[in-house]
Structure formats: C-alpha cells, structure tokens
C-alpha cells in the first residue's frame, strides 16, 4: 500500500472519499455514534466502568469470534446458517463425556473441534459439489444438527442439559486457554493506582481480562492478515467476486470455499468451548439465532451479502456495536425487548450504506 505512483490523471482524492472506499468505515462510524449515544444516556450507569467495559467486551468477543470467520465465508460468497446449532452440538460433546464417562476435558474439547470441522467439511463439500445455494444446504444442517443434538443428549442423559462441568474442568490444563483471565497483574496495578474502581469488599472491580477477548482480537488480526496479505486471501475475494473468472485463472474455488466452511465450524466450536468452560454447563439449545447475529455483525462491518467485498476488521466493529448496544440497553434500564428492533434496524441501515459505498467505489474513476 506504500506504493507511490505519480500520474497526471491521479486526482487528489479527498480523505473522506478514500475512507469511503474501505468496507469497515461504516462500522467504525457506527461504533463512534453508539459510544457517544450511550456516553450521554448511560454515562453514569456503570456501562463505562471497568466492570461494564469487560461485560460488553465479553459479549462482543463471543459474537466476534463467530463473525470473524463468517466474514471470510461471506466474502467468498457463501453463508453458514448451521453455526447456531453447531454451538449447541459442540457444547454437548464437550460436557457429556467428562460427566458421564470420566473423559478428561481436554479430550472432549478436542473431540468437539474435530466433530465440528467434519460437519463444516460436509457442509462445504455438499455446497461445492451440488451447486445448491449454501443458504439452503446449511439451513438443512441447522435443523439436522439441532435435532441430532437433542435426540442424542436426551438418549444418553434423559435430559437436554448437562451441568456441573466445573468439577471436571477446573483442574484441566486446557481450561485457562478458554475460560481464564489474562493481564491480572497489570489490572491489579491499575486498581492500586485507582484507575480501576474497587468493590465494596476492597477487591478490584475486575481481576483480569477474559481470555475470550484475546481470542477475538487475535482471530480478527489473523483473518485480516489472511485476507490482505496471503494468496489464500486473494482466492477468497475472487471466489466471491466472480467464481467463474477465478476458476479460469486456476484458483481452486472449491477448496477455498470448503476450507472456509471448516473455519466457520471451528469458530462455532471455539465459541462453545468458551461458553461451556466459563459457565460449567451445556444446553442443547445454546447458540440459537447466533448464525443470524453473526451475519448482522458482518454486514454492519461492511461485507457485501453478495460476496467479493468486505473485511474482518469491519466484522470486529460490528460485533463491538452488538455488545455495546446489548449491554447499554441493559445498563440504561431501557426494556431489553427493544434490543432486537434496534439491531435489525441497524443492519438495514448498514446494508443501504454498504451498497452506497460499493456504488461509489465502482465509479471512483
């Protein structure tokens, strides 16, 4: 990007115009607006205290892990509606073997990742080889996975939930990687300095940063690198932008798409692992509607529904908006019923904005 090309026909494009051709601009602007809005309406409610910030970041992080992978898949021109039930499916695979058969937790987590990767592979394989819209294929998996999870869980345990996993997971070496906290020392130090408030019992309001936030930011950076700076990234854009042209140029479109279906499935497994190890329980109904929340975050982040254009950073801001609005509504005491109305409207506005930005990008000559 550092290339300097001088040409008398290069018009100095105003900064705003240049920014407008980046997919994530809308989401960044939206984030600023949301922060200003809740800064005014919920400024002293505790939303922006250390505890409040960690709360909304945790919500954003979990959705953001999904959204990062979904963004890449959508840029490649496909949808994955199965990730919602994949979360319930993976959660049950993680929780039941330790509780029922004394498996070590690390083994059941590994099993969950492997199973999800396999389902993702099947999703991709079916989409690529039948040529059916992924919307339909993964809608099928959405129902099948939920049904399978319910049936098997009830068959094994007689119930649809599994709880008490903490007993098994607390000592497992794998737990800190998904349910732990990081930066405990610097947080403690900030609390000493009085930057972070203290609770009534004198302990700091937060004892560290949930590790899921690190996963979220790490995955977003990794996927951004993948998109912008690897051969695979070029193939993702091309597969979604014009699959035929890509094929003619020797891009392995099928392999690219299948890989991305595996990635969204793995993101669902990661989401489930964090959730199950943090709460110590699994529920067959977990993850309901997450597939659509992830799509909303991705679309707010500037990715086109039609593929070929978008960014992982944008999806990160989409997820951040999601978390701030959800927790902000809670903190301001507005009835949380309004949350869905707000997010739905936000997405429609984002889609309108995106198509405007794209139209603009395409006539930038």
């Amino acid at each position, binding site marked *: *990007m*550092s*290339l300097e*090309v001088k*040409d008398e*026909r*290069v018009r100095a494009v105003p900064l705003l115009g240049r920014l407008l051709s980046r997919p994530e601009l809308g989401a960044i602007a939206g984030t600023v607006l949301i922060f200003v809005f809740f800064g005014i309406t919920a400024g002293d409610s505790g939303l922006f205290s250390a505890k409040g910030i960690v709360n909304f970041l945790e919500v954003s992080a979990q959705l953001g892990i999904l959204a990062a992978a979904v963004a890449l898949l959508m840029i490649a021109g496909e949808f994955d509606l199965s990730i919602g039930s994949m979360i319930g499916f993976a959660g049950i695979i993680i929780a039941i073997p330790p509780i029922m058969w004394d498996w070590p937790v690390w083994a059941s987590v590994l099993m969950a990742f492997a199973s999800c990767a396999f389902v993702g592979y099947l999703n991709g394989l079916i989409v690529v080889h039948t040529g059916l819209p992924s919307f339909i294929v993964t809608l099928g998996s959405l129902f099948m996975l939920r049904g399978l999870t319910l049936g098997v869980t009830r068959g094994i345990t007689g119930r649809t939930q599994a709880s008490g996993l903490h007993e098994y997971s607390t000592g497992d070496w794998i737990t800190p990687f998904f349910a732990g906290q990081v930066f405990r020392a610097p947080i403690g130090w900030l609390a000493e300095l009085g930057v972070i408030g203290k609770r009534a019992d004198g302990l700091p309001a937060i004892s560290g940063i949930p590790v899921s936030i690190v996963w979220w930011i790490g995955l977003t950076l990794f996927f951004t690198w993948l998109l*912008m*700076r*690897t*051969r695979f*990234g*070029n*193939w993702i*854009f*091309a597969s979604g*932008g*014009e699959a*035929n*042209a*890509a094929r*003619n*140029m*020797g*891009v392995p479109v099928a392999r690219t798409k299948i890989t991305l279906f595996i990635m969204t499935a793995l993101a669902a497994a990661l989401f489930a692992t964090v959730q199950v190890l943090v709460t110590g329980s699994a529920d067959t109904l977990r993850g309901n509607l997450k597939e659509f929340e992830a799509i909303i975050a991705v679309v707010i982040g500037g990715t086109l529904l039609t593929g*070929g*254009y978008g960014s992982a950073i944008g999806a990160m801001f989409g997820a951040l908006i999601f978390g701030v609005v959800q927790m902000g509504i809670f903190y301001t005491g507005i009835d949380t019923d309004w949350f869905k109305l707000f997010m739905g409207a936000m997405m429609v506005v984002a889609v309108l904005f995106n198509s405007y930005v*794209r139209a603009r*990008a*395409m*006539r*930038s*000559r």
Partner: protein
Amino acid sequence: MDTPLVELKSVSKYFGSVIALKDVSFDVRPGEVHCLLGDNGAGKSTLIKVLSGVHSPDEGEILVGGAHTRFNSPKDTLDKGIATVYQDLALVPLMSVARNFFLGREPLKKTWGLRQFDVDYANRTAYQQLSDMGIQLRNPEQPVGTLSGGERQCLAIARAIHFGAKVLILDEPTSALGVHQASVVLKLIVQSKARGIGVIFISHNVHHAYVVGDRFTLLKRGRSAGTYQKNEISRDQLLNLMAGGKELVDLEQEIIKLNNGKR
C-alpha cells in the same frame, strides 16, 4: 518460414449430428497476426475451443512447435504457452487491478518465515507492465470495475503476455468497444506481434482485422473457405467474401430489376 507455434491439421468436430468443424487446417507463426473470420455459427468459437484445450477434436491433429500434442485441459494448454483471453475476460470487477493481474499466480515473499502475498511487488509490476504496453493506470489498487471495456481487455492481454504466452487467442476483443477503445486494443495486438507472439484474432469486423492482420482465414458453415496473405487480398474483396459476396450481388440485381419494373 518459421515452424508454426501451433497448428491444426484437418480438424473436425461434431456435436451429435451438427458438423461444427470439417477438415479445417489453421496455424499461427511467431510474430504473426492470423485473423479468423466468419459469420455467426461458422464455427469460430469451436475452433478456438479446440485450440485452447476446451474441446478435443474428433478427427485431425494438433501440433505445438511442430510436435504432435494433445491438450488435456485448458490449464495444460496454458502451460504450453497458449493463452486464451476469454470473452468474459476472467477478471473480478470488485478486486484491484494488481490483484487481478496476479490472480491464481500471486507473487510470494518470505517475512519472518511466513509466505506472504507480496502486495507491493504486485502493484509495482502490474503498473509497470501495463504502462510498458501503453496503458496508463491511475492507481494499481483501483477496482477493475472502474476500468473501461478497452482497458479491461488490455489488462487481460497484458496479463497473458506477462505470464509467458507464446500464442494469444483473442475472441472478439474489439466487438463491444467504441472506436477509440478498439484502437487501444488493436495497438496492443500490434505490440504483441512485435514481441514475437503469435496472435489469433477472431473478429466480425473486417476493418479491425485488416488493419492488424497478416493472414486471414475464412470459415463458412464449419469449413475453411480459404486462407489469404494480406498481399493476396484487398479489404474490399475480404469484405465481399465475409458478407457473402454472391448473396449481396444477387440482392443488388434484384433491386435493380424491381426498380426497372417500376419505371
């Protein structure tokens, strides 16, 4: 005379009962523009598809550099140095010029042990290659969708040349373009020829073909109606052949008769 870069000998191709090509011979030599002319349905696209490895011929032989060959796939043909610039151009409009230029053949560099897409090199090279061929880009990162039809055609041709094409097959590259845009593409064809590339130029437009062509082959209803050197045939003769000269002459006669009858 040089050995042809690629040569078809008495090739026939059938689609069920349809005779798409019958006994057609065709070749192209280094530094030559060989134009393929013919009416709709004459079999031009079929001939091109045989040459680019999409179809294998039912009868006849293919020679590359004088040696008998089979094309196993379009990719195989490309590896043998024969590049077809498709009518749909194989470009992705939402992606940048540089990313399109290197699509499927992205340059890599190693940073901290990681193999990365060398974006700077891609931008620099795409810009340089295009400007060497007389196409001034404003910015190699602009989306291909913002280019004009002629510029896109040139990008696709420049890309094929950069990746070592010895034979360029251009299927109606100027048919959708305005006068100025078409002349940009024709100029690029002449430049390719000067680099020693053999160009196969399919066109409806005799004016475009006659400007750049060295030899002309006419296809009629799946058969070859002759191959002519430029010095053997004038533009008007070619036009007559193309337009089905006899049919036009007959039509003229009838109109004259009609007019005489009225008087």
